[in-house]
Protein backbone atom coordinates (compact mmCIF):
# COMPACT_ATOMS: atom_id res chain seq x y z
CA UNK A 1 0.00 0.00 0.00
CA UNK A 2 1.41 3.37 -1.06
CA UNK A 3 0.72 6.55 0.83
CA UNK A 4 -0.17 9.74 -1.04
CA UNK A 5 -0.15 13.03 0.85
CA UNK A 6 -2.47 15.91 0.07
CA UNK A 7 -2.65 19.42 1.51
CA UNK A 8 -6.16 20.86 1.14
CA UNK A 9 -6.55 24.64 1.40
CA UNK A 10 -9.35 27.16 1.64
CA UNK A 11 -9.33 30.62 3.18
CA UNK A 12 -12.85 30.19 4.57
CA UNK A 13 -13.28 28.64 8.01
CA UNK A 14 -13.91 24.94 8.57
CA UNK A 15 -17.50 25.74 9.52
CA UNK A 16 -18.45 26.99 6.06
CA UNK A 17 -20.81 24.54 4.34
CA UNK A 18 -18.54 23.61 1.43
CA UNK A 19 -15.47 23.25 3.67
CA UNK A 20 -17.33 21.13 6.22
CA UNK A 21 -18.60 18.86 3.49
CA UNK A 22 -15.12 18.55 2.06
CA UNK A 23 -14.04 17.18 5.43
CA UNK A 24 -17.15 15.12 6.09
CA UNK A 25 -17.97 13.92 2.59
CA UNK A 26 -15.19 14.35 0.04
CA UNK A 27 -12.29 13.03 2.11
CA UNK A 28 -14.02 9.97 3.66
CA UNK A 29 -15.51 9.12 0.28
CA UNK A 30 -12.08 9.18 -1.39
CA UNK A 31 -10.62 7.11 1.45
CA UNK A 32 -13.47 4.60 1.19
CA UNK A 33 -13.08 4.11 -2.54
CA UNK A 34 -9.31 3.83 -2.34
CA UNK A 35 -9.70 1.24 0.40
CA UNK A 36 -11.73 -0.93 -2.00
CA UNK A 37 -8.61 -1.66 -4.06
CA UNK A 38 -6.27 -1.09 -1.13
CA UNK A 39 -3.47 0.03 -3.44
CA UNK A 40 -3.20 3.60 -2.16
CA UNK A 41 -3.92 5.44 1.05
CA UNK A 42 -4.27 9.21 1.33
CA UNK A 43 -2.66 11.20 4.10
CA UNK A 44 -4.63 14.44 4.36
CA UNK A 45 -3.62 17.76 5.82
CA UNK A 46 -6.44 20.28 5.88
CA UNK A 47 -5.68 23.99 6.23
CA UNK A 48 -8.66 26.32 6.37
CA UNK A 49 -9.61 29.72 7.72
CA UNK A 50 -6.60 31.70 6.61
CA UNK A 51 -4.04 29.36 8.17
CA UNK A 52 -2.25 29.25 4.80
CA UNK A 53 -4.26 31.48 2.45
CA UNK A 54 -7.10 33.96 2.65
CA UNK A 55 -10.27 33.32 0.57
CA UNK A 56 -8.95 35.46 -2.27
CA UNK A 57 -5.58 33.68 -2.18
CA UNK A 58 -6.67 30.06 -2.81
CA UNK A 59 -6.19 30.31 -6.59
CA UNK A 60 -2.64 31.56 -6.17
CA UNK A 61 -1.99 29.14 -3.31
CA UNK A 62 -2.81 26.12 -5.47
CA UNK A 63 -0.92 27.65 -8.40
CA UNK A 64 2.23 28.04 -6.29
CA UNK A 65 1.95 24.66 -4.60
CA UNK A 66 1.18 25.92 -1.09
CA UNK A 67 -1.83 23.62 -1.33
CA UNK A 68 -2.23 20.50 -3.46
CA UNK A 69 -6.01 20.69 -3.61
CA UNK A 70 -7.97 23.90 -3.16
CA UNK A 71 -11.51 25.20 -3.06
CA UNK A 72 -11.23 28.28 -5.26
CA UNK A 73 -13.85 31.00 -4.82
CA UNK A 74 -14.07 31.96 -8.46
CA UNK A 75 -16.06 35.18 -8.13
CA UNK A 76 -12.90 36.93 -6.87
CA UNK A 77 -11.12 36.29 -10.15
CA UNK A 78 -13.28 37.64 -12.95
CA UNK A 79 -10.15 38.63 -14.87
CA UNK A 80 -8.26 35.32 -14.67
CA UNK A 81 -11.36 33.11 -14.73
CA UNK A 82 -13.86 35.00 -16.90
CA UNK A 83 -15.84 31.93 -17.94
CA UNK A 84 -16.73 31.24 -14.30
CA UNK A 85 -19.09 34.22 -14.50
CA UNK A 86 -21.52 32.09 -16.51
CA UNK A 87 -24.36 31.80 -13.99
CA UNK A 88 -23.77 35.21 -12.44
CA UNK A 89 -24.21 36.74 -15.90
CA UNK A 90 -27.47 34.92 -16.53
CA UNK A 91 -29.81 35.90 -13.68
CA UNK A 92 -33.55 35.13 -13.39
CA UNK A 93 -33.31 31.58 -14.73
CA UNK A 94 -32.82 28.89 -12.10
CA UNK A 95 -32.88 29.07 -8.31
CA UNK A 96 -32.03 25.39 -8.02
CA UNK A 97 -28.42 24.93 -6.89
CA UNK A 98 -28.38 21.31 -8.13
CA UNK A 99 -29.42 22.24 -11.69
CA UNK A 100 -26.97 25.13 -11.90
CA UNK A 101 -24.06 23.12 -10.48
CA UNK A 102 -24.66 20.29 -12.95
CA UNK A 103 -25.08 22.61 -15.94
CA UNK A 104 -21.95 24.65 -15.19
CA UNK A 105 -19.93 21.52 -14.54
CA UNK A 106 -21.03 19.99 -17.84
CA UNK A 107 -20.12 23.18 -19.66
CA UNK A 108 -16.67 22.94 -18.06
CA UNK A 109 -16.29 19.43 -19.47
CA UNK A 110 -17.82 20.05 -22.92
CA UNK A 111 -16.02 23.32 -23.72
CA UNK A 112 -12.30 23.89 -23.15
CA UNK A 113 -12.61 27.46 -21.76
CA UNK A 114 -12.91 26.76 -18.03
CA UNK A 115 -10.22 24.07 -17.99
CA UNK A 116 -7.92 26.31 -20.06
CA UNK A 117 -8.30 29.16 -17.61
CA UNK A 118 -7.33 26.96 -14.69
CA UNK A 119 -4.52 25.37 -16.71
CA UNK A 120 -3.09 28.88 -17.20
CA UNK A 121 -3.01 29.09 -13.38
CA UNK A 122 -1.12 25.79 -13.16
CA UNK A 123 -4.08 23.80 -11.93
CA UNK A 124 -6.48 21.08 -12.97
CA UNK A 125 -10.24 21.57 -12.82
CA UNK A 126 -12.12 18.94 -10.82
CA UNK A 127 -15.69 20.13 -10.28
CA UNK A 128 -18.01 23.09 -9.76
CA UNK A 129 -19.65 23.89 -6.47
CA UNK A 130 -22.85 25.84 -5.96
CA UNK A 131 -23.40 26.68 -2.34
CA UNK A 132 -26.40 28.96 -2.33
CA UNK A 133 -29.87 28.54 -3.75
CA UNK A 134 -30.61 32.05 -4.94
CA UNK A 135 -29.92 35.69 -4.24
CA UNK A 136 -32.98 37.44 -2.81
CA UNK A 137 -33.66 41.05 -1.85
CA UNK A 138 -33.86 41.80 1.90
CA UNK A 139 -35.23 45.23 2.84
CA UNK A 140 -35.52 47.22 6.04
CA UNK A 141 -38.85 48.84 5.17
CA UNK A 142 -41.98 47.30 3.72
CA UNK A 143 -41.83 46.55 0.00
CA UNK A 144 -44.56 44.92 -2.03
CA UNK A 145 -43.14 44.84 -5.53
CA UNK A 146 -40.05 45.44 -7.61
CA UNK A 147 -41.22 49.03 -8.21
CA UNK A 148 -40.70 49.72 -4.51
CA UNK A 149 -36.96 49.21 -5.03
CA UNK A 150 -36.70 52.33 -7.21
CA UNK A 151 -34.38 54.94 -5.74
CA UNK A 152 -33.21 52.60 -2.97
CA UNK A 153 -29.65 51.98 -1.88
CA UNK A 154 -28.90 48.28 -2.16
CA UNK A 155 -25.93 46.35 -0.77
CA UNK A 156 -24.43 43.68 -2.95
CA UNK A 157 -21.12 42.26 -4.02
CA UNK A 158 -19.62 41.41 -7.37
CA UNK A 159 -21.74 40.79 -10.43
CA UNK A 160 -25.09 41.11 -8.68
CA UNK A 161 -24.53 44.86 -8.34
CA UNK A 162 -25.00 44.98 -12.10
CA UNK A 163 -28.54 43.57 -11.76
CA UNK A 164 -29.47 46.89 -10.16
CA UNK A 165 -28.93 48.63 -13.48
CA UNK A 166 -32.41 47.34 -14.31
CA UNK A 167 -34.05 49.29 -11.49
CA UNK A 168 -34.66 53.01 -11.83
CA UNK A 169 -32.42 55.17 -9.63
CA UNK A 170 -31.33 52.22 -7.49
CA UNK A 171 -27.76 52.65 -6.23
CA UNK A 172 -25.54 49.68 -5.52
CA UNK A 173 -23.35 49.81 -2.45
CA UNK A 174 -20.55 47.29 -2.18
CA UNK A 175 -20.31 45.34 1.05
CA UNK A 176 -18.87 42.13 2.46
CA UNK A 177 -21.19 39.49 3.88
CA UNK A 178 -20.22 40.27 7.46
CA UNK A 179 -21.01 43.99 6.95
CA UNK A 180 -24.57 43.49 5.76
CA UNK A 181 -26.19 43.36 9.19
CA UNK A 182 -24.60 46.64 10.18
CA UNK A 183 -25.19 48.32 6.85
CA UNK A 184 -28.89 47.48 7.05
CA UNK A 185 -29.24 48.25 10.74
CA UNK A 186 -27.65 51.67 10.44
CA UNK A 187 -29.52 52.65 7.31
CA UNK A 188 -26.39 52.85 5.19
CA UNK A 189 -28.46 50.81 2.72
CA UNK A 190 -32.20 50.15 2.39
CA UNK A 191 -31.88 46.63 1.03
CA UNK A 192 -29.28 43.93 0.59
CA UNK A 193 -28.86 41.08 -1.87
CA UNK A 194 -28.17 37.87 0.03
CA UNK A 195 -29.21 34.26 -0.02
CA UNK A 196 -31.56 32.93 2.66
CA UNK A 197 -28.97 30.80 4.41
CA UNK A 198 -26.67 33.79 4.90
CA UNK A 199 -29.70 35.78 6.05
CA UNK A 200 -30.34 33.15 8.72
CA UNK A 201 -26.68 32.95 9.77
CA UNK A 202 -26.34 36.69 10.16
CA UNK A 203 -29.85 37.16 11.65
CA UNK A 204 -30.85 39.55 8.90
CA UNK A 205 -34.53 39.21 9.94
CA UNK A 206 -33.74 41.46 12.90
CA UNK A 207 -32.83 44.40 10.71
CA UNK A 208 -34.36 43.67 7.30
CA UNK A 209 -37.64 41.86 7.90
CA UNK A 210 -38.96 42.13 4.32
CA UNK A 211 -37.68 39.59 1.81
CA UNK A 212 -38.70 40.24 -1.76
CA UNK A 213 -38.58 36.81 -3.38
CA UNK A 214 -37.03 38.06 -6.60
CA UNK A 215 -35.36 34.69 -7.34
CA UNK A 216 -32.31 36.25 -8.96
CA UNK A 217 -30.80 32.81 -9.36
CA UNK A 218 -28.27 30.33 -8.02
CA UNK A 219 -24.66 31.16 -8.79
CA UNK A 220 -21.59 28.93 -9.12
CA UNK A 221 -18.92 30.32 -6.85
CA UNK A 222 -16.62 27.46 -5.90
CA UNK A 223 -14.37 25.19 -7.93
CA UNK A 224 -12.31 22.28 -6.66
CA UNK A 225 -8.90 22.37 -8.32
CA UNK A 226 -5.62 20.45 -8.05
CA UNK A 227 -2.11 21.80 -8.51
CA UNK A 228 -0.96 20.65 -11.97
CA UNK A 229 2.52 19.47 -10.89
CA UNK A 230 0.99 17.49 -8.04
CA UNK A 231 -1.64 16.07 -10.40
CA UNK A 232 1.00 14.93 -12.90
CA UNK A 233 2.66 12.83 -10.20
CA UNK A 234 -0.56 11.23 -8.92
CA UNK A 235 -1.15 7.58 -9.82
CA UNK A 236 -4.06 7.03 -12.20
CA UNK A 237 -5.96 5.09 -9.59
CA UNK A 238 -6.03 8.12 -7.29
CA UNK A 239 -6.82 10.53 -10.14
CA UNK A 240 -9.90 8.52 -11.16
CA UNK A 241 -11.21 8.40 -7.61
CA UNK A 242 -10.70 12.16 -7.12
CA UNK A 243 -12.50 12.93 -10.38
CA UNK A 244 -15.45 10.72 -9.53
CA UNK A 245 -15.79 11.93 -5.94
CA UNK A 246 -15.60 15.58 -7.10
CA UNK A 247 -18.79 15.10 -9.12
CA UNK A 248 -20.55 13.45 -6.19
CA UNK A 249 -19.35 16.27 -3.95
CA UNK A 250 -20.81 18.79 -6.43
CA UNK A 251 -24.27 17.20 -6.21
CA UNK A 252 -23.99 16.54 -2.48
CA UNK A 253 -23.17 20.19 -1.63
CA UNK A 254 -25.83 21.58 -3.96
CA UNK A 255 -28.38 19.23 -2.36
CA UNK A 256 -27.49 20.39 1.13
CA UNK A 257 -27.62 24.01 -0.02
CA UNK A 258 -31.20 23.45 -1.19
CA UNK A 259 -32.25 21.72 2.04
CA UNK A 260 -30.69 24.48 4.08
CA UNK A 261 -32.30 27.18 1.95
CA UNK A 262 -35.77 25.83 2.71
CA UNK A 263 -34.99 25.62 6.43
CA UNK A 264 -33.43 29.08 6.36
CA UNK A 265 -36.50 30.68 4.82
CA UNK A 266 -38.59 29.10 7.55
CA UNK A 267 -36.19 30.40 10.19
CA UNK A 268 -36.35 33.86 8.62
CA UNK A 269 -40.12 33.91 8.94
CA UNK A 270 -39.90 32.54 12.47
CA UNK A 271 -37.42 35.29 13.31
CA UNK A 272 -40.00 37.92 12.39
CA UNK A 273 -39.30 38.18 8.67
CA UNK A 274 -41.96 38.37 5.96
CA UNK A 275 -41.52 36.83 2.51
CA UNK A 276 -43.15 38.75 -0.33
CA UNK A 277 -43.72 36.89 -3.60
CA UNK A 278 -42.92 38.59 -6.87
CA UNK A 279 -44.86 37.98 -10.08
CA UNK A 280 -42.98 36.65 -13.08
CA UNK A 281 -44.14 39.77 -15.02
CA UNK A 282 -42.35 41.93 -12.47
CA UNK A 283 -39.22 39.81 -12.70
CA UNK A 284 -39.37 39.93 -16.50
CA UNK A 285 -39.69 43.72 -16.42
CA UNK A 286 -36.64 43.92 -14.21
CA UNK A 287 -34.63 41.53 -16.38
CA UNK A 288 -35.62 43.35 -19.56
CA UNK A 289 -34.59 46.72 -18.16
CA UNK A 290 -31.09 45.35 -17.50
CA UNK A 291 -28.24 45.54 -19.97
CA UNK A 292 -27.61 42.11 -21.49
CA UNK A 293 -24.70 41.12 -19.26
CA UNK A 294 -24.86 37.56 -20.61
CA UNK A 295 -24.08 38.81 -24.11
CA UNK A 296 -21.27 40.96 -22.68
CA UNK A 297 -19.92 37.84 -20.98
CA UNK A 298 -20.04 35.84 -24.23
CA UNK A 299 -18.29 38.65 -26.13
CA UNK A 300 -15.50 38.77 -23.56
CA UNK A 301 -14.88 35.07 -24.06
CA UNK A 302 -15.19 35.28 -27.87
CA UNK A 303 -12.52 37.98 -27.83
CA UNK A 304 -10.25 35.61 -25.94
CA UNK A 305 -10.66 32.99 -28.64
CA UNK A 306 -13.14 30.81 -26.77
CA UNK A 307 -16.62 30.03 -28.05
CA UNK A 308 -18.53 32.17 -25.58
CA UNK A 309 -21.67 32.41 -27.67
CA UNK A 310 -21.98 28.66 -27.98
CA UNK A 311 -21.23 28.15 -24.27
CA UNK A 312 -24.01 30.57 -23.34
CA UNK A 313 -26.51 28.87 -25.63
CA UNK A 314 -25.51 25.42 -24.40
CA UNK A 315 -25.75 26.46 -20.75
CA UNK A 316 -29.20 27.98 -21.12
CA UNK A 317 -30.25 24.92 -23.12
CA UNK A 318 -29.15 22.62 -20.29
CA UNK A 319 -31.16 24.59 -17.75
CA UNK A 320 -34.15 24.53 -20.06
CA UNK A 321 -33.86 20.73 -20.38
CA UNK A 322 -33.81 20.58 -16.60
CA UNK A 323 -37.08 22.52 -16.55
CA UNK A 324 -35.89 26.05 -15.86
CA UNK A 325 -36.81 28.73 -18.33
CA UNK A 326 -35.69 32.31 -17.75
CA UNK A 327 -37.91 35.37 -17.83
CA UNK A 328 -35.64 36.86 -20.48
CA UNK A 329 -33.84 35.08 -23.30
CA UNK A 330 -30.27 36.21 -22.78
CA UNK A 331 -29.18 34.65 -26.08
CA UNK A 332 -31.72 36.63 -28.10
CA UNK A 333 -29.53 39.67 -28.79
Amino acid at each position, binding site marked *: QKSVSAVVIDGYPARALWVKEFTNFFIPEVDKRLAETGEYKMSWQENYGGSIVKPRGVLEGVQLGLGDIGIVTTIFH*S*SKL*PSQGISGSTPFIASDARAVAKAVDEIAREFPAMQNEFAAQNQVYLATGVVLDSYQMFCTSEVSSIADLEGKKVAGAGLNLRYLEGIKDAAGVRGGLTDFYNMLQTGLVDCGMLWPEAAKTFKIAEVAPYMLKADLGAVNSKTITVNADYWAKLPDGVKDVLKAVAIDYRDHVAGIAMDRAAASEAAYVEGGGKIIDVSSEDRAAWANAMPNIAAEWATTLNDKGEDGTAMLAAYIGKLKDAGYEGVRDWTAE
Partner: protein
Amino acid sequence: MLKTTLARITRIANLAAIASNALGTLVVLALVVVLNVDVIARGVFSSPIKGTYEMVQFSVVMIVFLQLADVVRVDRLTRSDGFLNLLGQRSPNMAANMRRIINALSAIFMGLIAYITFPEFLHMWDTQDYFGVPGLFTLPWWPVKLVFSFGTALACLIFVLKVITAVDRPHLEAAKSENNT
Protein backbone atom coordinates in the same frame (compact mmCIF):
# COMPACT_ATOMS: atom_id res chain seq x y z
CA MET B 1 37.08 57.63 -5.75
CA LEU B 2 35.18 54.63 -4.42
CA LYS B 3 34.02 56.77 -1.55
CA THR B 4 32.56 59.50 -3.76
CA THR B 5 30.80 56.93 -5.94
CA LEU B 6 29.34 55.35 -2.84
CA ALA B 7 28.25 58.74 -1.51
CA ARG B 8 26.59 59.48 -4.85
CA ILE B 9 24.73 56.16 -4.88
CA THR B 10 23.61 56.72 -1.30
CA ARG B 11 22.34 60.17 -2.17
CA ILE B 12 20.43 58.90 -5.18
CA ALA B 13 18.93 55.98 -3.23
CA ASN B 14 17.87 58.30 -0.43
CA LEU B 15 16.36 60.76 -2.87
CA ALA B 16 14.43 57.92 -4.51
CA ALA B 17 13.15 56.82 -1.09
CA ILE B 18 12.10 60.37 -0.24
CA ALA B 19 10.37 60.84 -3.60
CA SER B 20 8.57 57.52 -3.28
CA ASN B 21 7.59 58.50 0.24
CA ALA B 22 6.10 61.77 -1.03
CA LEU B 23 4.16 59.82 -3.64
CA GLY B 24 2.80 57.51 -0.94
CA THR B 25 1.86 60.56 1.07
CA LEU B 26 -0.20 61.86 -1.84
CA VAL B 27 -2.00 58.50 -1.83
CA VAL B 28 -2.99 59.10 1.82
CA LEU B 29 -4.36 62.47 0.78
CA ALA B 30 -6.19 60.92 -2.17
CA LEU B 31 -7.71 58.35 0.17
CA VAL B 32 -9.12 61.10 2.38
CA VAL B 33 -10.51 62.99 -0.63
CA VAL B 34 -12.05 59.98 -2.43
CA LEU B 35 -13.73 58.64 0.69
CA ASN B 36 -15.20 62.03 1.62
CA VAL B 37 -16.50 62.64 -1.88
CA ASP B 38 -18.00 59.14 -1.84
CA VAL B 39 -19.73 59.69 1.51
CA ILE B 40 -21.26 62.94 0.27
CA ALA B 41 -22.14 61.56 -3.16
CA ARG B 42 -23.87 58.59 -1.57
CA GLY B 43 -25.51 60.35 1.35
CA VAL B 44 -26.62 63.57 -0.31
CA PHE B 45 -27.02 62.56 -3.95
CA SER B 46 -27.67 58.80 -3.54
CA SER B 47 -25.06 58.01 -6.17
CA PRO B 48 -21.96 56.44 -4.63
CA ILE B 49 -18.72 56.47 -6.61
CA LYS B 50 -18.16 53.11 -8.23
CA GLY B 51 -15.04 51.26 -7.18
CA THR B 52 -14.29 53.08 -3.92
CA TYR B 53 -13.79 49.72 -2.22
CA GLU B 54 -11.22 48.62 -4.80
CA MET B 55 -9.51 52.01 -4.73
CA VAL B 56 -9.19 51.83 -0.95
CA GLN B 57 -7.65 48.35 -1.13
CA PHE B 58 -5.21 49.54 -3.76
CA SER B 59 -4.26 52.62 -1.84
CA VAL B 60 -3.42 50.64 1.31
CA VAL B 61 -0.87 48.63 -0.69
CA MET B 62 0.46 51.79 -2.35
CA ILE B 63 0.92 53.55 0.99
CA VAL B 64 2.76 50.62 2.58
CA PHE B 65 5.15 49.78 -0.24
CA LEU B 66 5.82 53.31 -1.48
CA GLN B 67 6.81 54.36 2.03
CA LEU B 68 8.68 51.21 3.01
CA ALA B 69 12.09 52.31 1.69
CA ASP B 70 11.86 55.63 3.52
CA VAL B 71 10.88 53.84 6.73
CA VAL B 72 14.06 51.80 6.29
CA ARG B 73 16.08 54.94 5.49
CA VAL B 74 15.11 56.68 8.73
CA ASP B 75 15.35 53.38 10.67
CA ARG B 76 11.72 53.27 11.78
CA LEU B 77 11.11 49.64 10.91
CA THR B 78 9.90 47.98 14.12
CA ARG B 79 12.71 46.59 16.26
CA SER B 80 13.70 46.11 19.85
CA ASP B 81 17.30 47.38 20.02
CA GLY B 82 17.90 47.56 23.77
CA PHE B 83 20.58 44.87 23.60
CA LEU B 84 22.32 46.55 20.66
CA ASN B 85 22.48 49.88 22.46
CA LEU B 86 23.86 48.19 25.55
CA LEU B 87 26.46 46.41 23.46
CA GLY B 88 27.26 49.68 21.71
CA GLN B 89 28.33 51.25 25.01
CA ARG B 90 30.64 48.37 25.93
CA SER B 91 31.99 47.34 22.58
CA PRO B 92 31.13 49.76 19.77
CA ASN B 93 32.91 47.69 17.14
CA MET B 94 31.03 44.53 17.91
CA ALA B 95 27.71 46.42 17.94
CA ALA B 96 28.53 48.01 14.60
CA ASN B 97 29.31 44.59 13.14
CA MET B 98 26.08 43.19 14.49
CA ARG B 99 24.16 46.03 12.91
CA ARG B 100 25.89 45.21 9.65
CA ILE B 101 24.86 41.57 9.91
CA ILE B 102 21.28 42.55 10.73
CA ASN B 103 21.17 44.96 7.80
CA ALA B 104 22.58 42.27 5.52
CA LEU B 105 19.90 39.84 6.68
CA SER B 106 17.27 42.52 6.07
CA ALA B 107 18.67 43.24 2.61
CA ILE B 108 18.39 39.55 1.77
CA PHE B 109 14.77 39.41 2.94
CA MET B 110 13.75 42.53 1.00
CA GLY B 111 15.68 41.26 -2.01
CA LEU B 112 13.89 37.92 -1.90
CA ILE B 113 10.50 39.63 -1.95
CA ALA B 114 11.56 41.93 -4.79
CA TYR B 115 12.92 38.93 -6.69
CA ILE B 116 9.78 36.82 -6.30
CA THR B 117 7.27 39.61 -7.01
CA PHE B 118 8.96 41.17 -10.06
CA PRO B 119 8.07 38.39 -12.56
CA GLU B 120 4.49 38.73 -11.33
CA PHE B 121 4.53 42.36 -12.43
CA LEU B 122 5.81 41.39 -15.91
CA HIS B 123 3.14 38.71 -16.14
CA MET B 124 0.36 41.11 -15.13
CA TRP B 125 1.69 43.66 -17.60
CA ASP B 126 1.49 41.06 -20.37
CA THR B 127 -1.93 39.68 -19.50
CA GLN B 128 -3.39 43.05 -18.40
CA ASP B 129 -5.24 41.19 -15.64
CA TYR B 130 -7.59 43.37 -13.68
CA PHE B 131 -9.17 43.53 -10.27
CA GLY B 132 -12.86 44.27 -9.63
CA VAL B 133 -16.08 43.49 -11.43
CA PRO B 134 -16.21 43.95 -15.21
CA GLY B 135 -18.88 46.46 -16.20
CA LEU B 136 -18.81 48.08 -12.75
CA PHE B 137 -15.27 49.07 -11.93
CA THR B 138 -11.89 47.53 -12.64
CA LEU B 139 -8.29 48.44 -11.92
CA PRO B 140 -5.24 46.82 -13.53
CA TRP B 141 -3.21 44.53 -11.28
CA TRP B 142 0.22 45.55 -12.54
CA PRO B 143 0.70 48.77 -10.53
CA VAL B 144 0.19 46.81 -7.31
CA LYS B 145 2.66 44.12 -8.34
CA LEU B 146 5.12 46.80 -9.50
CA VAL B 147 4.92 48.66 -6.21
CA PHE B 148 5.63 45.42 -4.27
CA SER B 149 8.91 44.85 -6.10
CA PHE B 150 9.86 48.52 -6.43
CA GLY B 151 9.36 49.22 -2.72
CA THR B 152 11.20 46.12 -1.53
CA ALA B 153 14.02 46.50 -4.10
CA LEU B 154 14.64 50.06 -2.97
CA ALA B 155 14.52 48.97 0.67
CA CYS B 156 17.02 46.22 -0.21
CA LEU B 157 19.37 48.77 -1.82
CA ILE B 158 19.21 51.03 1.21
CA PHE B 159 19.96 48.12 3.52
CA VAL B 160 22.94 47.15 1.32
CA LEU B 161 24.24 50.73 1.54
CA LYS B 162 23.82 50.60 5.31
CA VAL B 163 25.91 47.43 5.38
CA ILE B 164 28.68 49.14 3.40
CA THR B 165 28.62 52.53 5.14
CA ALA B 166 27.78 51.11 8.59
CA VAL B 167 25.41 54.00 9.25
CA ASP B 168 21.97 52.98 10.56
CA ARG B 169 20.29 56.32 11.09
CA PRO B 170 21.51 58.83 8.49
CA HIS B 171 19.42 61.80 9.70
CA LEU B 172 20.68 61.46 13.27
CA GLU B 173 24.28 61.05 12.18
CA ALA B 174 23.97 64.09 9.93
CA ALA B 175 22.55 66.17 12.78
CA LYS B 176 25.35 64.97 15.05
CA SER B 177 28.11 65.95 12.62
CA GLU B 178 26.49 69.36 12.07
CA ASN B 179 26.55 69.97 15.81
CA ASN B 180 30.18 68.95 15.98
CA THR B 181 31.38 71.38 13.33
